[in-house]
């Protein structure tokens, strides 16, 4: 009892004897412990009340009946009608597909454009202080409002009279390119700009683990740049790629506010559809059903992405 209730038993001996860095997390020791439960209670109460219960309720309500005039907007009668309606709703599926494509493009583009950035920061900047400073510089926009960034993207940069069109005009393009503002294209480009940091950050941390001398050794042993990349760098980068892809896929699929700003009223995403069902028609059950399908798509996507690397082992 005395051992199990002590908050910090010494790190397992074998680890230390091997010279592993002693850490505050103890792996490989089992035992419930009263303290673990006590520490866990407040967090999981909050998570249960504000995360798990709401998610469970989305699923429940999606199987309940819509009732006009009811204060909550639904009656607790089980039905499959919401899903049947959705499966016949072509607009919903078109939007789902567009949203899915947007997310796929965002993941691919963020990987392609973000990799050199992470590679540069992690492996080409030698001085640690410079590395941190440059990383913070790249990371700073993450702390600013996505709504503000979307507004900045839409009007001053992309719109009919935006910066890009101004430059194009100087270059001799007479007509402003309409497709840059309030369009699916603009939304897709903006997604790259808004979310690329979610790829650069995990990639940076993953690539920082690469032993630089291993790269040099590989080159000295006659490996080409390509084979060095494939054999030495890529395996280390893979967990970062997977984590970044999950982030971007999930966050862009669920986007709502930015799509509304950047797309104007012309582009809809799954988020705006759910919103329109809920806000305009107070169609909670159908909104929930579409939300459930969105989550199903997310889970499927994350499952596919995680096949590329054994995350639990890497973490």
């Amino acid at each position, binding site marked *: 009892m005395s051992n199990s209730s*002590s*908050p910090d*038993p*010494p790190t397992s*001996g074998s680890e230390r*004897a091997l*010279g592993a860095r*002693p*850490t505050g*997390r103890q792996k*490989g020791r089992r035992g*419930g*412990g009263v303290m*673990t*439960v006590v520490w*866990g209670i407040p967090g*999981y109460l909050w*998570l249960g*009340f504000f*995360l798990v*219960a*709401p*998610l*469970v*309720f*989305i699923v429940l*309500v999606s199987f309940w009946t819509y009732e006009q005039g009811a*204060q*909550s907007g639904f009656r607790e009668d089980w039905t499959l009608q919401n899903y049947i309606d959705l499966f016949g709703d072509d607009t919903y599926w078109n939007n789902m597909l567009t949203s899915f494509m947007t997310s796929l493009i965002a993941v691919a583009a963020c990987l392609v*454009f973000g990799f*050199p950035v992470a590679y*540069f920061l992690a492996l*080409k900047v030698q001085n640690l202080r410079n590395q941190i400073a*440059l990383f*913070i*510089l*790249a990371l700073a926009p993450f*702390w*600013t*409002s996505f*709504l*503000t960034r979307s*507004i*900045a993207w839409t*009007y*001053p*940069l992309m*719109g009919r009279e935006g910066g890009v069109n101004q430059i194009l005009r100087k270059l001799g393009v007479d007509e402003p390119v309409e497709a840059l503002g309030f369009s699916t294209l603009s939304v897709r480009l903006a997604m790259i700009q808004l979310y*690329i940091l979610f790829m650069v950050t995990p990639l940076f941390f993953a690539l920082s683990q690469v032993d630089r001398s291993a790269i040099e050794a590989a*080159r000295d042993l006659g490996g080409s740049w390509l084979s060095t990349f494939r054999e030495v760098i890529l395996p280390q980068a893979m967990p970062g790629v997977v984590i970044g892809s999950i*982030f971007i896929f*999930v966050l862009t699929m*669920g*986007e*709502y*506010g930015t799509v509304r700003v950047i797309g104007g009223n012309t582009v809809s995403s799954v*988020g705006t559809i*759910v919103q329109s069902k809920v806000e305009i028609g107070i169609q909670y059950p159908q909104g929930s059903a579409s*939300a459930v399908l*969105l989550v199903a798509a997310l889970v499927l996507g994350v499952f596919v992405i995680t096949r590329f690397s054994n995350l639990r082992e890497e973490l």
Partner: protein
Amino acid sequence: MSTTAATPTSPRSTRRRRKRIDWAKWILALYFVLFLAFLYMPMILMGVLSFQGPFGGLTWPFRGPVTLNWWKSLFDSSVPGSQAENIGIAGRNSLWISLAAGAIVALLAFTLSMAFRRNFRGSSVAFYVIMLALMTPGFLLALGTQLFWSFLDVPTSIWRTALGANVIWGIPFGFLIMLAVWNRYDNAIEEAARDLGANKRRTFREVTLPLVWTGIFGAFLFGATLTWNDYDRSILFQVNSTDTLPLTIGGLTFTGAIRPDLYALGTATTLATVSVVVLFLLITTIVLKFRGASSAPVRRVEEEFGEELGGPMRIEAADTDER
């Protein structure tokens, strides 16, 4: 490559190789600059447009003269068409709710990470629940919260519900920060304190907390900034358009009542957020440097005699542990 590789162990050869111009590095550096330009360009253009004259519009060309008119209208409600009053109320609301969310995130992230310091049965499921908070789209979380609360028949509001949803968004970030802190943390310090006679509570207060407070503060910062900027998680709980600053901005945008003062506001909030982050980094660096200086002698001893001291002592510790 071929000649220098012949004597790879000689320090001279590696030095000579370093001196060669690393073209890849400079090309990547150029790319990095372009990347930063891509990231910052919209904000910079927005900032520039916020300094337009009274006839300034939302897009180019810049309608001069350069004035602080739109910035002034943020604070001064006597400027025609000024939203100063609403912005003031919304800003104060946002500030309080962000501080509250930050404090709750810091507390919960810390307690959760304390639970995870030891492996327990079901810890991987528990870990995935926290990651679920990261994965759930904000808008869906808000929808679910609304459904849940309407079922409980409790009216929603920013303080009751949006706060809860925003804390959910902050918890995984704070939690991951704390995990990183514990990964670098040396349990031997706590053991030493206990061996020297400090009881559990005193060890926690005087040894553990001072060592990990930067992580706790980082969690607070994440919770506060994420909430300060949130729109998706709050919009469904909006009662007044002045409930939070992003809701005010969103309201102005979607009703088409958007003017360059919105640009000034966006630039101002961005600068505020960034300066808070920079300030935090400065404080942490200074604190770490100070602490590093004070423990430098210890570290020097460890570096010099670590091999001799560490070996046997560690095995001894292993023995006592096994019992």
